[in-house]
């Protein structure tokens, strides 16, 4: 493409936006509203997932061994468990450590425990605590571990796993549904704006086609228009959301200070590492797709 053609395309694209400024503004506002909602939802989903993930890591599976299992065999079991993708980390607790923890928890320094000084009542309680990165796979992992040689018993918190898994699933389904809905609405709106632009320039498009303009030449200003609407429609809510996010976190933590230290919110920069490219991509993508399909209908001259 020649520089003069690129310049022409840019000029026409901007001209289209100015000429239909009301529709352009309506598109930008609606797209901005859609991406703003998307951003809010994205932030909520990420924070809920983050909290759920933290809780997941605090609900371990405990693996006990058969009597007489050697250290070497225990290590081999540990290796096998660690190799599973759903396992975040494992911690080994010897029988002595298990007794110490039990004493701490139930005897709280009382002399009653001294009676077991040389005879550890939990002699057979050496165990692995297995922390998962995806609690929905807990029962799968438990079945796998139960099949391993020298494993006597596996303790799990089925209820916690189910509840957390369900929350994760629900949040994911709702987010997908909302995102799809927003996408459809945005594409429809951009398509409408471009349609108006085309209606205004229908005669011009016809003349262009009679003279021998290629589809790409005719289409380029409209694609540019869609892209500009998309970028502006994404940039505005991203800026607003940036300040709203920080404001909302400080409000929640001030208002409900019981949550401080319990709930960890993801910092805004971390959210934006993903949200920024996705939103801009969505804006540009919606703009391009909306314009592309709308112009296609009118190019068969």
């Amino acid at each position, binding site marked *: 493409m020649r520089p003069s053609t690129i310049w022409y395309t840019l000029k026409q694209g901007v001209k289209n936006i100015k000429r239909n400024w009301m529709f352009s503004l309506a598109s930008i506002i609606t797209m901005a509203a859609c991406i703003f909602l998307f951003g809010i939802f994205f932030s909520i989903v990420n924070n809920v997932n983050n909290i759920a993930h933290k809780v997941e890591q605090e609900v371990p599976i405990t693996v006990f061994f058969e009597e007489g299992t050697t250290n070497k065999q225990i290590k081999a079991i540990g290796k096998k468990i660690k190799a599973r993708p759903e396992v975040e980390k494992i911690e080994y607790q010897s029988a002595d450590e298990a007794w110490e923890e039990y004493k701490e928890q139930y005897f709280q320094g009382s002399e009653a425990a001294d009676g077991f000084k040389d005879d550890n009542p939990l002699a057979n309680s050496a165990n692995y605590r297995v922390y998962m990165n995806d609690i929905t796979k807990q029962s799968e992992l438990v079945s796998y571990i139960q099949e391993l040689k020298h494993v006597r018993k596996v303790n799990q918190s089925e209820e916690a796993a189910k509840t957390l898994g369900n929350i994760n699933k629900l949040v994911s389904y709702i987010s997908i549904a909302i995102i799809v809905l927003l996408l459809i609405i945005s594409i429809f709106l951009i398509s409408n704006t471009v349609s108006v632009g085309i209606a205004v320039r229908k005669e011009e498009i016809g003349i262009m086609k009679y003279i*021998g303009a290629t589809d790409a030449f005719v289409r380029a200003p409209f694609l540019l228009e869609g892209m500009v609407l998309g970028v502006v429609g994404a940039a505005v809510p991203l800026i607003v959301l940036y300040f709203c996010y920080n404001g909302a976190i400080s409000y929640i933590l001030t208002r409900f200070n019981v949550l401080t230290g319990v709930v960890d919110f993801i910092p805004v920069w971390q959210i934006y590492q993903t949200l920024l490219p996705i939103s801009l991509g969505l804006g540009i993508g919606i703009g391009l797709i909306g314009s592309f399909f709308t112009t296609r209908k009118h190019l068969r001259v």
Partner: protein
Amino acid sequence: MIDLIDVSKSYGPGLPAVNHANLHIDKGEFVFVVGNSGSGKTTLIKLLMKELDSTSGQIIVSGERLEGMKHRRVAKYRRKLGVVFQDFRLLKDRNVYENVAFAQRVVNRPTRVIRKRVPEVLQEVGLAVKYKSFPDELSGGEQQRVALARALVNRPDILLADEPTGNLDPKTSEEIMKLLEQINDRGTTVVVVTHNKDIVNSMRKRVVTMHEGSIISDEKEGEYHEA
């Protein structure tokens, strides 16, 4: 240059708009296509412009077969044609210079070529002094001259004119036809669709007469016959 071999075009059931038409036009010819409203002459022009596809038959223009031509090839094909319409079809928001330059821009000509070629062609059609005027500031004849300049700026092999004098008074019509004759003298093949009897009869050019979709006569230095 232009060959129509047993070409028909139907829009639906009933009599076809063009019915088994056969026509051969040589390079550099000046041809009138005449006939009453609904005779099929505009459909014929649209077939040549590849705005419509024929239902049957073969159309060959400048060595290119139009039936089955891929959509993306149509733009390149149309660059060989110059087209003029009854309603001028100028861009109202652009001045004379920009309207003509637009045709060059569309086919990706560099700006330095546009700056040289547009004044040349405006000179040819006698509108060099009005290059800054907008279409609404021009008379019908002047607007048709701009349309002609736009059609000629890319030096097409063939000029198709669909009722070019339909909106003009007799004197201006005559001027436009003189201009078309000059263009033809420079080697461009000119096909004019019209129902302007006086003009056809005064110019003594080849006349192809259509009636209800069929070509009913083809005379070398013909006259306008009512069907």
